[in-house]
């Protein structure tokens, strides 16, 4: 196991991804930044988080994945300017807050975003 892998992984991430919850250990969610700090400190939880990063997993059940995905989307969309940013080729437009409503109400559009966020999390944790 090497801290260098975690360090390289962390430095490759977009800045905005670094503070979104991603990894779960012992029932607690960690962002890439908090995970990186724990790994660099060499704490016991840091060892567990390092193992997750090295194996490209985020240590969650399906229910946990969905909950973390929703939290990530909420945290991100609340930070965005509230003007129409998103459109579809079924003639719909959305501001971030309107999209957030779809996600919270678990409409088909909200589920599409939530499920994609889980795939996105996998891409992020496996980034090399």
């Amino acid at each position, binding site marked *: 196991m090497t801290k260098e892998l975690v360090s390289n992984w962390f430095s490759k991430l977009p800045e905005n991804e670094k503070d979104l919850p991603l990894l779960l250990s012992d029932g607690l969610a960690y962002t890439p930044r908090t995970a990186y700090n724990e790994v660099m400190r060499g704490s016991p939880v840091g060892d567990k988080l390092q193992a997750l990063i090295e194996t490209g997993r985020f240590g969650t059940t399906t229910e946990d994945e969905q909950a973390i995905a929703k939290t990530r989307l909420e945290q991100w969309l609340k930070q965005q300017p509230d003007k129409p940013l*998103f459109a579809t*080729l*079924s003639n719909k437009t959305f501001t971030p807050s309107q999209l957030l409503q779809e996600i919270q109400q678990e409409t088909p559009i909200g589920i599409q975003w939530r499920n994609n966020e889980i795939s996105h999390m996998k891409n992020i944790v496996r980034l090399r």
Partner: protein
Amino acid sequence: MPALDNTFLFVEPMQHYLNYGSTILHQIVGANKNPSQTIVELIGSDATPEKALEQLTSLQPIVFSLTGHGSETTTSLECTAKLVNTESPELELFKDKVISLVSCLTAQQLGPAIVDAGAVAYIGYKEEFWFFIGDEAGTTRAVQSPFLAAYQFEASLLHGKSTSGARTDQLAKYDEEIAYWITGDGKNDPYGMELARILEMNKTNSVFLGEGYVTPSPSPTVMVAGASSIPFALATIILGVLIYRELKQ
């Protein structure tokens, strides 16, 4: 009448945010076409169902491509006027053709109906197709990116690729655009998070049905053969001049 090789029909409506896609399609056609191809673009107010169906009948293009709002059973053109649905007798006009619908949801029912009606290939989306409207149409990489990936299929067909080759190129372009927003120059763009997710969803939801061996624009082979004979012709002329000079002395 069979569909004609090297003949393309592109339909590019502009209203209801469709200019975000049609502008890119128009640029891609301009950048990738060659003189051996017959290309018709129906743009803006010309992008009506009536004109599209008329051109499908008279032109018999091997490739028909559009940007339009769609549903599971329908796709539409300018002012959201319906072009066809799963029950339309006009589906027969898609026989022997490659059909590209950059529309939402059509891969669920309309796409299979198009293939059942005899189209050789269909490409479209089974869920919502997302794009970014935070900037004016065509002005930034953020608004272009989803359509650059989607229309790589058309770009590759215009370049002489087969339907399967164009599909492979399109998926590779999706990966390239996603990488741009996650690890490339766009990773810390204020809207990088939006674009990464939009492209991931569109790639996951894109669907190709039908045959992969069809090459709508096979002419580049002929052009390459023609181009390769030019050095030989030049060498022959130069040699002729040298022999003439030698003989003259």
